[in-house]
């Protein structure tokens, strides 16, 4: 992932400002193109973040250790 993107809060804020700039500003084509490319990059980053969360349930025990949760935890029985 691009190291210039700190976190998704920052990414989404930057993406918002880029879209706004593109929508209102009378920018040279070259600048528009650069902004667009950055925007696409940010958008991909955000989508990647969504995918990155791990599907997992863990229990934090008394000793501060993480162990897998019993498999029946989220199921109806």
């Amino acid at each position, binding site marked *: 992932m691009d190291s210039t993107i700190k976190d998704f809060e920052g990414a989404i804020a930057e993406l918002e400002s880029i879209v706004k700039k593109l929508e209102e500003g009378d920018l040279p084509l070259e600048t528009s193109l650069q902004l667009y490319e950055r925007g696409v990059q940010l958008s991909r980053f955000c989508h990647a973040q969504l995918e990155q969360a*791990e599907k997992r349930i863990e229990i934090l025990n008394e000793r*501060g250790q993480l162990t897998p949760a019993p498999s029946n935890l989220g199921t109806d029985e």
Partner: protein
Amino acid sequence: MSNSLFDLPFEEPQESDAGRDPGSAIRDSVAAEPRRVYSVSQLTERIREMLEERFFEIWVEGEISNCFVAKTGHVYFTLKDAGAQIKAVMFRSDVRYLRFKINDGLSVVARGRLTVYDPKGEYQIVCQHLEPEGLGARQLAFDQLKERLAKEGLFDARRKRPLPALPRKIGVVTSLDGAAVRDIVKVLRRRYANAHIVIRPARVQGDGAALDIARGMAAIGKVKGVDVVIVGRGGGSIEDLWAFNEEVVARAIAGCPVPTISAVGHETDVTIADFVADLRAPTPSAAAEMVVARKDDFCARIDRLGQRLQATFQMRVAMRGRRADDLAHQLLRALRGRIARRERAYQALLLKLERFDVRRRFDVIRARLAAVDGRLRTGIDRRVHGADARFRATAARLDSLSPLAVLGRGYAVCWNADRTAIIRDASTVDSGDKVHVKLERGELDCTVTNHEGAETRGFDH
């Protein structure tokens, strides 16, 4: 007299009257009565023994006044009503168990025993337990803690943190046996399939529950990556939910390094934890829904931004393309105009020359004319060519400045067959018409096979 004075179960000293004559007995009925002299200490001790025995466990109601907490932690106060007052003390070991603070003006029912403080000769009640009258002890404790924490600013709106834009690792502090954990996991599983959940089990009712919850909050706050914590339990009686009204829990929630959601009982249950947490969920399921909603918002936001990004960029590119077309067209028209003007001037000059040649000096200077004519022609040619070279240079410069370079980016200029006009509207040509397409390199002659008004333009080679 003496009996009415000492209407107490004192063991009267019994002394034998034997051997006295009735007369002297009558005469000395008062004076001769044998004296039983107590020391003050003895008397006080007798009084104390009697009071302690008789009022071993009593309930008394009254209003607290002159309340004073000693350094030892014991609390001294006076219980009074409209007609009387009694000194009271509550030892630290008992004060500990009170859920409210002993305050002046509080009406209470006290359970305790009477005793006498010998050095002062004062009797007092040693309270083992106090219950606020009219108001449940719990309610009072709740109100007092709430007021105190509110004063500290723990409930301030500006302390409230928003949930992260995309919660990724969700901490949960609750009992593993309760309904809450199942509800939370179920909602997250269904609506946020790849959520990472970390559960810190904690007793949520009974002795030690509050401390357990507080420790759980502290522990889960330290787990790397946890970005929101749900703390709570399912519904129950007010006693069952009480741990969430304890100060230690309130402080643990306030001290959590990441945003917290309280989810205690049902909608109608409000606990101190709810006031301190960044967000209050009416139920554990609702808390999970709040997390999901953030995720959904995040998805919607980036989807919308992505769409806007595409749309705005496409529009800008289209606008640029149209402007380039316009410039190219203007340039060509300008060049054509200038060339035509030069052409006309040349023709006029030529005509003038011919007339001059024929009418005035036909005979005389025919010979010279031939030479002059030749010179003139070369001169004019040079001038025309010079002008032409300048046009080319200008055109090339303009070209490099942009509009014609548009062709280099893949745009094309479509002319009509005799190249007198650029076609910008499909309705100006008919099927079968020839058109001429100029590309960056080379040109195409095309035949229109189909056209669909202003929206779509179709042509074929």
